[in-house]
């Protein structure tokens, strides 16, 4: 199929149109235009599906891509040629992303039409949700960092608006401010990294960046004593850290749950937060060139583990999911860092699906019983069977139980991490990456099943009579705490069930355990591995390291880039046979066994604690540590109370006081005093010297000074000073020229 603007643009223009119509006319439309927003996303989905099928079933090659550009604006004048191009770049990764984003967004829109029914912010919600979706789709379509950044920020704005949508709550204001500012910290660095690349290689298009890396244009370039690749790569990764809520910029994501649950599902779980990972994957060659992969892996490992520990003590169902999102994003970053390129991307996709479903299920629970605290739930599976089913599938997936999608992707990441940490001859300290990764996986299985058991199993702790209510859902908001038996409803349950279907592992890999189960569907069932691989950068692999301004002269083959080669050793043209293939296979086998054992022990422990109740929860035994976890390791307090309130605001208040109270008062208005002294001296000179001598023309001087006197004495300050300067200046001038 020949691609033109006409069959690519509707992907993001359809939701933009819905945004515009809803923004201006939404109040007048039936149902405030929610159907229009949903429909527009469906249009995007259809167009995305065409592209997806074309890429995956038609061309079926890893190096297939579309690249179309146009000039946005042009500053050329004379011999100075400089213009800014925008464009569309679709490769396999983008095609998969498009399908995932539009598909998940469509289901979430559909669910939201149920969830937001009778909500006072219904209309507003359906203004920002399509705008957000269009920005995310446009971000995926972008062929360069500039347009990525533009849509990145627009998504940030939508996220800000949706977090703060219940604007009567002070907390919503705090949360939205925190979200925007924390991600903004990363964003300004992203901008800086982009500027650095742009001004050195003359473009920020992905294709040009890859080519520049291949041609060695980054070599020998330095920014403030750091090699350009490291500087730019780090800046860009910091941008990704902000958006993808990586330690230490993770603090905004839990608070982002102030928004409506479906909004959280789309933005703060499935798509936007994954944009940081997507960016890191897009800029993967730069990360390798800048020798940043180990850093990415470590940040990812810390995030994955830390967030998992915090999730252990959460009682709010959305908070558990929020921290699990942070933790899973950490796994994706581990994947990027250890060179598990396609597994990291696969985890992005699988996570988007199961986490969207988890949030929607949580939304279904919250909306049905008007309660978010898990200790007040329990036994809900009788009342919410479909929700329970969907949520269970997703929990199995996120916990890494075999045959589910999360296992396929996470197992590969952990296997590669195992190799990276123990066998690749890296710095031994990097063993922390697989250790934290596996520990986090165990915790994940535990806290997710804790959530399931507390919510759906055991006895109902709501102290209310549950009864069947025939009128469907959402109508009786005022009734408060009554639980209605869930009926299969198109808008409430079907999105959940569709998403739940895609938590099965075989969609993503024909080999259910990652390696050994027969390739039942033939080679093409490994589509994910075959289609998604790191951008080919020809000279990249033999890049002499000393050119990068580093004293380390290891050949680049030692870089973790080598790890994923074996996945597709026949497809990648550039790596050659990897001598470590055997080791990697070993790592994967050990990793698979380990993660299965760890996942099941986590589930079993949760079962013992919350179903059998034969093991007591550990938190009472460690009150101190529980307190630390409940306070989220005090990061929020550190940032808000110390860095911002004491540091930044203190500095600001001091500067503002200095500006008006000191500088303006003394240095500026203080001239009045100086003038008075000069004036008195002049008057004395005038009276004593001039009058005494009685030169002709004294009268003029006296009149002039009298004028000045009047001005100064009447409070018109500084006139004297001006006159003085004028006289002085003209004197200097007439004498010297």
């Amino acid at each position, binding site marked *: 199929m020949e691609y033109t603007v006409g069959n690519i643009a509707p992907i993001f223009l359809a939701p933009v149109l819905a945004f515009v119509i809803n923004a201006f006319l939404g109040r007048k439309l039936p149902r405030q235009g929610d159907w229009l927003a949903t429909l527009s996303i469906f249009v995007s989905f259809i167009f995305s599906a065409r592209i997806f099928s074309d890429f995956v079933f038609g061309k079926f090659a890893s190096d297939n891509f579309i690249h179309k550009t146009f000039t*946005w*604006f*042009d*500053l*050329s*004048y*004379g011999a*100075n040629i*400089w213009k800014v191009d925008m464009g569309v770049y679709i490769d396999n990764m983008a095609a998969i992303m498009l399908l995932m984003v539009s598909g998940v967004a469509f289901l979430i829109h559909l669910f939201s039409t149920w969830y937001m029914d009778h909500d006072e912010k219904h209309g507003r919600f359906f203004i920002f949700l399509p705008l957000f979706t269009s920005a995310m789709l446009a971000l995926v379509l972008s062929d360069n960092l*500039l347009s990525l950044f*533009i*849509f990145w*920020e*627009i998504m940030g*704005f939508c996220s*800000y608006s949706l977090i*703060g949508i219940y*604007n*009567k709550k*002070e907390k*919503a*204001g*705090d949360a*939205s*401010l925190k979200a925007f*500012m924390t991600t*903004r*910290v990363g964003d*300004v*660095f992203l*901008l*800086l990294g982009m*500027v*650095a690349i*742009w*001004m050195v290689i003359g473009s920020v298009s992905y294709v040009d960046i890859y080519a520049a890396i291949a041609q060695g244009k980054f070599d020998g370039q330095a920014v*403030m004593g750091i090699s350009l690749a490291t500087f730019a790569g780090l800046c860009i990764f910091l941008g990704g850290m902000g958006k993808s809520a990586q330690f230490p910029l993770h603090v905004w994501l839990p608070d982002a749950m102030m928004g409506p649950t479906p909004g959280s599902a789309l933005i703060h779980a499935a798509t936007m937060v994954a944009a940081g990972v997507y960016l890191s994957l897009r800029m993967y060659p730069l990360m390798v060139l800048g020798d940043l992969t180990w850093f990415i892996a470590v940040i990812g490992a810390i995030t994955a583990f830390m967030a998992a520990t915090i999730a252990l003590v959460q009682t709010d169902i959305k908070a558990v999911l929020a921290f699990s999102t942070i933790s899973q994003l950490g796994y994706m970053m581990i994947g990027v860092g250890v060179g598990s390129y396609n597994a990291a991307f696969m985890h992005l996709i699988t996570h988007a699906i199961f986490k969207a479903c988890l949030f929607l299920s949580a939304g279904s629970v919250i909306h049905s019983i008007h309660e978010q605290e898990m200790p007040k739930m329990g036994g809900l599976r009788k009342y919410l069977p479909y929700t329970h089913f969907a949520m269970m599938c997703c929990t199995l997936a996120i916990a890494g139980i075999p045959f589910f999608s999360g296992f396929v992707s996470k197992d590969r990441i952990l296997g590669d991490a195992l190799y990276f940490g123990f066998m690749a001859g890296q710095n031994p300290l990097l063993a922390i990456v697989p250790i934290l990764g596996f520990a986090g996986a165990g915790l994940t299985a535990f806290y997710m099943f804790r959530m399931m058991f507390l919510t759906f199993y055991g006895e109902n702790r709501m102290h209310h009579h549950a009864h069947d209510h025939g009128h469907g859902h959402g109508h009786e908001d005022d009734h408060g705490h009554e639980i209605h038996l869930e009926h299969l409803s198109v808008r409430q349950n079907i999105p959940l069930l569709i998403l739940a279907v895609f938590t099965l592992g075989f969609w993503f890999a024909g080999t259910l355990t990652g390696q050994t189960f027969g390739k039942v569907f033939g080679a093409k069932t490994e589509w994910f591995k075959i289609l998604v691989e790191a951008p080919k950068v020809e000279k990249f692999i033999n890049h002499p390291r000393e050119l990068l301004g580093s004293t380390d002269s290891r050949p680049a083959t030692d870089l973790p880039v080598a790890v994923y080669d074996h996945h597709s050793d026949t497809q990648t043209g550039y790596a050659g046979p990897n001598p470590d293939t055997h080791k990697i296979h070993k790592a994967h086998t050990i990793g698979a066994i380990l993660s299965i054992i760890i996942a099941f022990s986590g589930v079993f422990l949760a079962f013992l604690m919350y179903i059998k109740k034969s093991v007591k929860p550990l938190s009472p035994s460690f009150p101190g540590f529980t307190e630390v976890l409940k306070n989220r390791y005090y990061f929020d307090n550190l940032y808000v109370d110390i860095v911002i309130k004491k540091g*930044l605001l203190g*500095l*600001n*208040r001091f*500067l*503002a*006081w200095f*500006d*008006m109270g000191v*500088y*303006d008062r003394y240095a*500026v*208005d203080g001239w009045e005093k100086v003038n008075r002294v000069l004036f008195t001296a002049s008057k004395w000179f005038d009276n004593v010297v001039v009058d005494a001598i009685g030169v002709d023309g004294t009268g003029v001087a006296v009149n002039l000074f009298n004028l000045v006197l009047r001005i100064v004495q009447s409070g*018109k300050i*500084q006139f004297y*000073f*001006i006159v003085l*300067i004028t006289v002085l*200046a*003209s004197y200097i*001038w007439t004498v*010297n*020229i």
Partner: protein
Amino acid sequence: MNGILNWILWLPVIGMVAVILTPKAKENAIRLVTLATTTVTLALSVILYMNFDTTTADMQFVVKIPWIEQFHINYFLGIDGITMLMTFLNALLFFICTLSSWTVEKNVKAYFALLLMLQSTVFGVFFALDFFLFYVYWEVMLLPMFFLIGIWGGENREYAAIKFFLYTFFGSIFMLVGIIALYYATGKGVDSFNIVAHQGGKFTELTVDLFGKTLSFETLFFWFMFLGFAIKVPVFPFHTWLPHAHVQAPTAVSVILAGVLLKMGTYGFLRIAFPIFPQAAVESSTIIAVLGLISVIYGAFCAMAQDDVKKLVAYSSVSHMGFVMLGLAAMTTQGMNGAVLQMFNHGTSTAMMFLLIGILYERSHHRWIVKPDGSKGYGGLATKLPKYTTVFIIGMFASLGLPGLSGFISEALIFLGIYQRFTTITVIAVVGLLIGAAYLLWMFKRMFFGEVNPETEEYDDMNAREVFYMIPLCVCVIVFGVFPSPLLNVMKASVGQLVDLLSKF
């Protein structure tokens, strides 16, 4: 089309005369006359834009009539791409300010007469290509401003008006000395007051003996000019008049002050200081960049600490104009274009902010985000004033540089430009972007979120007139954020010529 600049320049004066001739009691007639005048002026500036030749960097629509012949002073007008944008901005903002001043009750006749006089003098500054004419307009402009702040201002208006007047006057004295020096340096000839004729680095060889030292003519008088313009911008450390003037000035005057008067300072650099003294400009670019950087950061930090919302926006102007100075100091295609674009974009976005604060002030009669006694000044505005909130969000996000709105492109261009010459400064300036978002959003959070309090409960949302005059600005901010080409195409030849000139030194 040759006389169109005359029309644009003198039409406000004709309007002023008409206002003066209207009986004082007929306040609505006065308002309508002013509105008609500014509307026609705006229409003329659009016609000017449509007839503007974007391919050339030369002066267009030139008018040159001898004025004081023994000194070779001419009534010499003309515009290039940079002034084209400023002309449009000026015409647009005065049109909007007339509408926003509809509620002024005190001495309506004098107010609108002065407003029209101010518009004419601002046009004069942008059109004048004769140094003497330029100086006359530069100084005369102070008078209507002085009275507008001093009579219609807030509690402390006299102090603010005098401070504004003296500070600017102080700077322009230096400029005057520079002008006289140029007059003598060019041998008092035919072109000795001709700004265009001075351009191109003709004074690089000249020296001045001062206190027994030989100084470069260029360097010395570049700094004289610098002082005159830097106070107007205002660049740190000459900025303290701005918060006073803004806080005390009535809404429309704040809009004009931030929207166009500050741009006269940076315009001075683009038209006079840089092209006439290019070598000195290139040599001092580091200092300009550092001062611009300090303005960006210091202005942002000071803004964050303010409890008065108007003062906050005033300091944000210091910060945003610092970005313009950074772009100018870059002296590259991207930086210079970004700076001129930022002049326009800051004009529209900051005008929105001041107008919105004015609209709120008319309802609340105070401007405290946090009152001096520590209680909330506002709260729950988002619930009570939905239309107002929507427009406020557009203005605020344009101001903080959200992509998709106008501020982003200019800021990004400035960063691209400055990075090529001053990497470290770029890295530090990034903090300005961060704090820039912080103070605006924090202000927004404190004013708009939360429960509606009894005081806020009584406010009305924006009325039709207020919505009407906010629309053009919203359109500018959004359209030029997505399609900057209509602005960039107009300016790029003129800016490109200046960049070429500077690159030779």
